[in-house]
Structure formats: C-alpha cells, structure tokens
C-alpha cells in the first residue's frame, strides 16, 4: 500500500506522463502536449472559485492509469444497465475508468462523415482535426486543474460533425467509474462544423464497486460551434460520495451559432462544476439549464458563465438547486459583456431551495458589462419551503412528506420540463427521486 500512496501523492510528472503516453502509442505531438502540461501543473495554482476552498479537498487521489478491455453491453454493471438508452440507434460510447470499452457509430452517420469515437483513438486516427482543436477552448495552462487534466486525461469522446450535416439522433456516451484506484479523466472534444446540428448526451456515473477509497474525477469538455451550427450538450453526473467531481465545460461559439447546455449535477460528493460559453460570433446564442441537489455534507461550487464578444449575442442561464441536510452550494452566474458587443443580451436566474436549517446555499449573480448598448438582467433567490404552501396542500389531505415532494419537484420542474430530450428528462427524474428519497 505504501507503493500506491507514493504514486498517488505525486501523480503528475513529465516522466510518468511521457512514459504512459508512449506506452499507449500516442502520437508524439500528444506526448509532448501532456509532458508540457505536467510541467505546468507543478507551478500553477488550483482554481479559486468563490467561497469554496477546493485546495482543501483531497485532490491527490487521481488514481493510476489502468488499461481497459473491450466489453459488450451485456457485460456492463447493473448501474450502467439502468441508464443504457432504450434505443441507441447503433450509436453509443462507453468509458470505464481509464479507457473506452465500447464504441459504436451507425453506418448512416459514418457515411455522412460524422466521427464519434473515444478521444485517444481519434488522436491517432484523426490527428489533424484533434490537434487543431484540442485545448483551444480550455487552455491547458489556465490553472493547475486544466494542466493536470491535460497531462492525465484518458478515454474521452471525440465528435466531429461535417459542414451542413444534421445528426437527428442524440450521440450518447456513458462514462462510468467502478475502481477508485484507477484514474478516470475523460476529455470531450466536440467540433460542429458550419451549419451542422448535433445533440450530445452523456451520463457520468459510478458502478456498484469502487466506492470505498477516495477518488477524483476530472473532466473537461470543449465544444467548438462553427458559424450557423447548433449544438445541444446534455450531461448528467451522479458519482458516488467517495468521488470528487471536477468538471469544466466550455463552448466557443461562432457567428449565428448556438450552444444549449443541460446539466444535471446530481453527484453525491464534492463538486466543482464550471460551464462557460464564449460567444465570439455576432448573433451567437447560449442557453444553459442547470439543476442540482445537495445532500449530506456535500460541498458544491456550481458556476455558469457567458462571455459576450459578438454583436447581438444572447445568453440565458437558469440554475435551480435543492439543498438538504448539511449540504453547501455556492452558485455563481457570471455574465460578461465585452466592449464592442453591442445589442448583446444576457439574462440569468439562480434559485436555491433549502430543505434543512443546516444546509447552505449562496446565489451570486454577477454582471460585468463593458459596453453601453446592451441589455442584461439577473434574478437570484435563496428560500425555504413555504409553510403556507405546505398548509394548503395538507388541507387537501396530502401528507406533509408528499406536500414537500410536490413542492420540490415543482421547484425543479420549470427547468426539467424545458429539456428537449425525453430520455434525459426521465433519467434526471429518476436520479432526483433517488437523491430526495435517500
């Protein structure tokens, strides 16, 4: 065990990263990118989200790389079976711990030039595309987290949708962890070329095993939305409470392009979730819907951001969180409108419903505006369940527990019911039920 803990305390070094990359027969440019990131991670600082000291979390438990064997869907554990889409339409990717175990893309989509595979494979087979975009939306030297992730990411997802191609079915991935000692660090790179359209859905979950030791899931998603393209990115996180979930997402959005984020942060452990749209293009839009439920002594930092550079760009953000027990959530909404982004509009709402006097929820709406000719608005609230509403429901014969349940579901419903994907809505409802029932 001493051997293991030594490895865990210094998981990132140029030497480890280089030899791992070479063992995996990654292209030289990727080995070099990882090695450089490993160097950078040694000097950079962890990010400092508002009022949450992530540097006090056990961020050393990054695990070690363990190669994965291919698997059939039937071989996947029960927890994963429960979220397998009923109809994958021949298109699904599964990552287990450190690597992809299943990848399938329908012939129809292949014929249209769509690429959907794990990022490690893509780095070998589609190096030109991957190299062009990897770590462009999220620079690897932004902080210690991005550098660490760039050095260590594994498995992952790569999606490329060619110009003018519309993918009708959602491309779905299941990223799951059932070995706390294995590193679990998917990187998602999605490139939607001009006037294309695609929906990507992933479920980040724990299997039944590997819940005893502390573990860190670090992931980053880069979404490149070219002119006139439309991307819907839905992600549902429900890892076990031994896991720290560090998830960064960033979209770079070109002229008249749009990104829609749907984020279900239903994780059971500590969480850093940061989702940002960079609206470079004129007429570009971003719409982010985030729901979260905090239970037990969870500590969460949930941030949604929009940066407006393009003229007439539009951003909408809605976050709703329910906090139980002693859970803490700091919810930040940041709308930044840069000089020159005339006629931009940014709206954000953060609402927190507290179910326990020991729970804590802060909603911090922030508007940073450097241009005069814009519109922007925010609304934030933190409140308890309304006693008058409980009385009203109970006066019709509904028990107190059921009345609370109705009010909590009602609180989340405006976001959940707006989600355009029925399967995602159903999974969210299932997980919400689980988190509220425990």
């Amino acid at each position, binding site marked *: 065990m001493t051997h293991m803990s030594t490895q865990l305390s210094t998981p990132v070094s140029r030497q480890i990263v280089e030899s791992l990359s070479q063992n995996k027969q990654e292209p030289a440019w990727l080995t070099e990118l990882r090695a450089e990131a490993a160097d950078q991670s040694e000097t950079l600082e962890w990010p400092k989200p508002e009022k949450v000291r992530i540097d006090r979390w056990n961020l050393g438990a990054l695990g070690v790389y363990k190669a994965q064997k291919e698997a059939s869907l039937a071989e996947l554990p029960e927890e994963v079976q429960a979220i397998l889409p009923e109809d994958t339409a021949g298109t699904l990717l599964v990552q287990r711990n450190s690597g992809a175990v299943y990848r399938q893309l329908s012939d129809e989509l292949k014929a249209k030039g769509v690429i959907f595979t794990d990022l490690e494979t893509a780095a070998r087979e589609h190096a030109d595309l991957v190299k062009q975009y990897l770590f462009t939306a999220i620079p690897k030297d932004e902080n210690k987290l991005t550098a660490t992730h760039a050095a260590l990411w594994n498995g992952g997802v790569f999606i490329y949708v060619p110009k003018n191609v519309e993918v009708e079915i959602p491309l779905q991935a299941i990223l799951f962890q059932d070995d706390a000692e294995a590193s679990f660090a998917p990187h998602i790179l999605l490139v939607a070329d001009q006037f294309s359209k695609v929906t990507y859905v992933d479920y980040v979950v724990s299997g039944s095993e590997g819940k005893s030791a502390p573990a860190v899931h670090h992931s980053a998603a880069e979404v490149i939305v070219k002119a006139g393209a439309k991307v819907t990115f839905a992600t549902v996180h429900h890892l076990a409470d031994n896991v720290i979930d560090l998830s960064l997402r960033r979209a770079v959005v070109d002229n008249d392009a749009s990104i829609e984020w749907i984020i279900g942060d239903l994780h059971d452990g500590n969480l850093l979730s940061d989702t940002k749209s960079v609206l470079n293009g004129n007429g570009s839009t971003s719409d982010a819907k985030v729901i979260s439920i905090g239970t037990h002594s969870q500590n969460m930092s949930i941030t949604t951001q929009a940066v407006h550079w393009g003229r007439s760009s539009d951003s909408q953000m809605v976050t709703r969180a329910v906090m139980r027990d002693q859970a803490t959530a700091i919810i930040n909404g940041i709308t930044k409108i840069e000089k020159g982004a005339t006629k931009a509009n940014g709206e954000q709402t953060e609402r927190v419903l507290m179910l326990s006097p020991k729970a804590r929820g802060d909603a911090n709406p922030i508007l940073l505006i450097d241009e005069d000719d814009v519109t922007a608005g925010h609304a934030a609230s933190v409140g308890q369940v*309304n*006693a*008058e*509403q409980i*009385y*009203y*429901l*109970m*006066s*019709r*014969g*509904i*028990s*107190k527990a*059921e*009345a609370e349940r*109705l*009010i909590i*579901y*009602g*609180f*989340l*419903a*405006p976001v959940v019911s707006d989600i355009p994907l029925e399967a995602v809505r159903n999974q969210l409802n299932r997980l919400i039920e689980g988190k509220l029932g425990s």
Partner: protein
Amino acid sequence: MSTHFKIEGLKAAIEGKEILKGINIEIKGGEIHAIMGPNGTGKSTLASAIMGHPKYEVTSGTAHLNGEDVLEMEVDERARAGMFLAMQYPSEIAGVTNSDFLRSAINARREEGSEISLIKFIRQMESKMKELEMNPEFAHRYLNEGFSGGEKKRNEILQMMMLDPKIVILDEIDSGLDIDALRIVADGVNSMRSEDRGFLIITHYQRLLNYITPDYVHVMMQGRIVKSGGPELAQRLEAEGYDWVKEELGIVDETVGQA
C-alpha cells in the same frame, strides 16, 4: 352515519393575541350555516383554526366531526376525515399542475394499490370543470399560478367537488367574483348539497346568500357569535347593516385583536 359537526368553546390566538373567545356551532348533514359580520371580527380566524393553519393556536375548545375531535389531528388528517376549507387566499404553487395536485389529493384518501385510474380521474375532472365553466387548459396550468381572483375561487370549488368532503367551510368565497362567476360558484355549491354534507359559509355580504339559501345565520363580533337566526336575519343585515346589532348588544367596537 349522517354527518355531525360540533364546535364547543373554541378559543384561538395568533401571536399570543386571542381572536376567538369561545365559539359554539353545531352543524348537521344537510344544513347550511352562514357566518356574517364586519371585517376584523374573527370570521376567517374561525375557518383557519378549524382547518389547522400553523399560525393559529387553539387555546381551548373542541371540534368533533362524527365523534372525533379534529383539533387533535394534523391538517392532512382533518382533510381526510372529511373537512374542507375553500380558502380566501389560496396558495400558488409553481411547477405543480392542477391535475397532478388534485390526483395526489384524491389518492391520499385511497389505499396504496387502489389509486384512482388516470382515465377515470381525467373524466371526472373534465366534467366538473365544465360545470364550473372553467377552461380545460386550467388542468395543466400550475396550481393557482397566474389565476385571476375569480379563477382561484372556482378552482377551490372544483377541489371541493372532486374531494367530496363532509363539512365544507367557504371562507369569503364570494370576494372578488363578478355576478356571473358568483352564480357559477353558487350553482357548484348547491349541486353538492346533500344529507351527508354540512356547510359553513363565511361572508360579509348578503349577496351570496341570494344564491345559496342558508338554514341558519350567525353574526360574529369581537370573536364571538353574538346573534343567530334564520335566513331573514341575513336579509335584515343586508337592508340595515350591522349598526342595529351593535346597538342592541351595546357593542361600540365590533373588531377583535386589531392593533
């Protein structure tokens, strides 16, 4: 067993201030009682105290429904025992549709495994909504959210019709209703009159009683019932106001608990 509801010596306080100073009323199945009185005399407090609003503290007295003291019960138990209060200011609950809410309320009265079927529920709800001339889309709207005053009141009557209670208390159901809505609501109440059901109608206008004829009329002042009579009492109050009652009883200020 026919319905029998008896309130005896009911005293209640809000924030330590006594509002109800000993109320006695007996309502049998088939009877309609009206409680009238100017504002601030404790009428709505009576309704809230019977239903168990958390802000009101019952300091003494009992309210037996068919032998069981509902004041000893939780709010939801009172409702399941057969009490129903149509509220003056119904809560708005975002995200919970009217139909989901009503189905939960109906199923709360049924054993697990014998919940009302969706088809049967929808049919019932649609037919009652039609009787109340409610737009069918209100079934899918969030509970009372964005409803006008009149729509909220109709929605209260809809709930009453769906839940089939034994004792119905209508708290100022006529406030905020125009004449057409008033008639629709009154028709709804009249259609529910039966030997198994008693009504307690709280109002400070006589006009509702033109549509729903009470068997007994009680006047409330200073947190007590100070005068009782038949329907003719309501008519005299409408014609002459409350001053003659005050004079007769030597009451200068009829209100209670006002700062």
